[in-house]
């Protein structure tokens, strides 16, 4: 699945890094606790969250997460978008709630972390 597929499935607005919509995404993680996200590592992941502060982008940066989806129609501040642009992290915003957004992606084949 590509970031563009996610954007279409969840009817997202793209807030930055549109040029990277063609990137492949292999798994997803949905959480408002960044500490929990930091316990989860995999390549080419997408993070779904309702948290809007710059630490969401920092967390994505440290973990090489390539796309953040803000749920419940939330739009982050310009400082957050700018930081994401600088780090090359695609920012999407969807009106879907967390549960529905995760459910739709899972149903379409995007799975969570496979425990080793």
């Amino acid at each position, binding site marked *: 699945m590509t970031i563009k597929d996610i954007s279409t499935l969840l009817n997202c607005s793209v807030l930055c890094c549109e040029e990277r919509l063609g990137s492949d995404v292999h798994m997803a993680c949905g959480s408002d*606790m960044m*500490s929990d996200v930091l316990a989860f*590592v995999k390549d080419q992941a997408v993070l779904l969250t309702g948290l809007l502060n710059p*630490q*969401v982008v920092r967390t994505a*940066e440290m973990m*090489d997460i390539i796309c953040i989806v803000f749920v419940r129609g939330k739009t982050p501040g310009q400082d957050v978008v700018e930081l994401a642009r600088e780090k090359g992290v695609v920012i999407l915003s969807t009106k879907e709630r967390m549960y529905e957004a995760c459910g739709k992606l899972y149903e379409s084949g995007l799975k969570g972390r496979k425990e080793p």
Partner: protein
Amino acid sequence: MSIVLKHEIPGDDFSRAGEASSAVKNKLKQMGIPPEVIRNVSIAAYEGEINAVIHANGGEITVTVDPDAIVIVISDTGNGIPDIELAMQEGYTTASDNIRALGFGAGMGLPNMKKYADEFDIRSEAGKGTVITMKIYMKRPKD
């Protein structure tokens, strides 16, 4: 030859937490360090940086890059940790609701640091501060 990266961790602005770890990550990328090593260093450093901001009003991070390993030292002059064994337990936290609302303080910081580091050491003294030393090998030992 060792390369030493040193950054101050400002304690007064949570929105800036992560800048030091970000600077370290960029430098390691430029140096051509393997991506998986960079990620482990970045996460361990970032968790430590967040902790220093939340609990100790900032501190200092020193990253030493050697040919066989990267050593991260995060030190602060905060109140110290009275019971390290308790603090190492997953889910144990003394962070305020305010910090939890920012997405941290789930009691995963120290356990995560230990998980991503190949060697982990924590020393703390009441009223003096905490020093965490983490070593990440350039090549992961075979399981």
